[in-house]
């Protein structure tokens, strides 16, 4: 077997490339990001599955619930659509984070864990990839909701809305990564869906305005990142906000939580042993 040219001294690029290491680190993160996108695009079943759910919710709640409220469903749809966008993002993002468990089971996680890069970078690539996927998903749901009659107040507002979607996605993708770092099989998946994701979704006020909740539930809804995410989307897309905070506070809280959960995710990812 012939060696390809050029002749290389043992380990030469290990040290020889250090001067470019910042560029190389970016490239590694980019490749891990790209991997998540490719996996998403190749998994049709997953894409259809995660889009079917918001469509069902739009139909059931938009027509059913909106009709019950007696205002013809039109106004309620303005309220509902941002909530459903939030829902599709939280489900997709948590799922991409939890994929760590999958990668652990199928072994690919090891390949990234022994690679000559910091685990923080591995986590950044994964999480950013997962968050991008969830944001794309949210944008598609936004488009779908227009077929149901939802009209964003202005199309210019869609750009900042996508930024908000990305922040929500980043938070929940990190939370997924944290969970994935602790668990080593998918058995616990339904537990997480039922005891974490569903409550966070309902308590965010995505479907209906929360009124007359006991104090402790109000507290939970106030620390639920999705509360702020959905509110910000509502302000931007439908010009209605349902609580006293306003877009500025929403955005600040989301940015803060995105930072905090990314750091926490990085910390726990660092601790993974295989």
């Amino acid at each position, binding site marked *: 077997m012939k060696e390809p040219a050029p002749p290389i001294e043992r380990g030469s690029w290990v040290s020889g490339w250090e001067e470019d290491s910042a560029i190389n680190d970016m490239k590694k993160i980019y490749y891990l990001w790209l991997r998540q996108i490719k*996996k998403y695009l190749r998994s049709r079943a997953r894409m259809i599955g995660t889009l079917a759910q918001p469509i069902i919710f739009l139909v059931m709640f938009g027509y059913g619930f909106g009709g019950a409220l007696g205002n013809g469903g039109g106004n309620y749809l303005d309220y509902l659509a941002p909530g459903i966008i939030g829902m599709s993002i939280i489900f997709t993002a948590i799922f991409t984070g939890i994929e760590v468990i999958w990668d652990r089971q199928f*072994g*690919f996680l090891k390949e990234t864990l*022994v690679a000559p890069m910091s685990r923080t970078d591995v986590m950044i690539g994964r999480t950013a990839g997962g968050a991008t996927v969830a944001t794309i998903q949210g944008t598609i749901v936004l488009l779908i909701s227009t077929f149901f009659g939802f009209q964003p107040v202005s199309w210019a507002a869609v750009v900042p809305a996508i930024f908000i979607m990305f922040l929500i996605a980043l938070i929940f993708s990190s939370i997924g990564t944290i969970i994935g770092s602790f668990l080593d099989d998918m058995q616990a998946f339904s537990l997480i869906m039922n005891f974490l994701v569903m409550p966070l979704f309902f308590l965010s006020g995505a479907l209906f305005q929360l009124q007359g909740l006991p104090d402790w539930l109000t507290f939970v809804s106030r620390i639920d990142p999705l509360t702020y995410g959905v509110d910000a989307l509502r302000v931007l897309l439908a010009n209605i906000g349902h609580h006293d905070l306003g877009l500025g506070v929403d955005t600040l809280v989301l940015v803060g939580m995105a930072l905090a959960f990314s750091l926490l995710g990085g910390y726990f990812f660092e601790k993974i042993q295989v």
Partner: protein
Amino acid sequence: MIEVSNLTKKYGDHVAVDDITFTVTDGEVFAFLGPNGAGKTTTVKMLTTLLRPTAGVIKLDGIDPVLEPELARRQFGIVFQDPSLDDDLTAWENMDLHGVLYDVPDVLRTQRCEELLKFVDLWDRKDSVIKEFSGGMKRRLEIARGLLHEPKILFLDEPTTGLDPQTRNLLWDRLQELNKTKGMTIFLTTHYMEEADRMADRIAIMDEGKIIAAGTPEELKKQTNTEFLEDAFLALTGKTIRDEGAGSSDRARVMGQRMGRR
């Protein structure tokens, strides 16, 4: 190149690796030989920053993988015992991603990916996703990927398990060439005697978490008065089949045998 002293890994009461000490010199091919559940893979995982040792010190070219995991990871490459490919990516993408993660420059990466995919006879399947591959094909790709970057130290955890004899021979030749021309230090675990005998400069025989004998293949044969390494291995480790956690009677028996020999 690899220095290990008093390395121990415990899972609760179970001692997977029990106070082992050994050294692998620069440019050496070193084999860890032992039955299933002897602690070979656990040792490799500790050497490659995947597991934290319970006690003991490791140095890879002077770097402690517990204290400086990132720097340590720059010193080695590894072929895992169990699958570590991404099933949703193609063969080429798996190779390419590995090359990027290991800082192999663009032009060289493309060259090598092509050359190695041809080497393991998967070039015409390079654009197929791994899902569609058979077990043997996955294993071959795994090997090719491990050879893509040429590190100072290459760990191979039972590399030839599941390989056909043709690929096994090709791999042996390739590894020997890398060892000779590039001075790559090679650390492999195996339970094939033939492999250890043919490849390794030195062998450590591991059983139930301990190194029970070490030396060149010749030394081991002489020590046990056997003609073949397989006989030496059986003389040292006994003939019963091992589970991951061997029973206490089994342990006592092996102990007795070992004492009797001394």
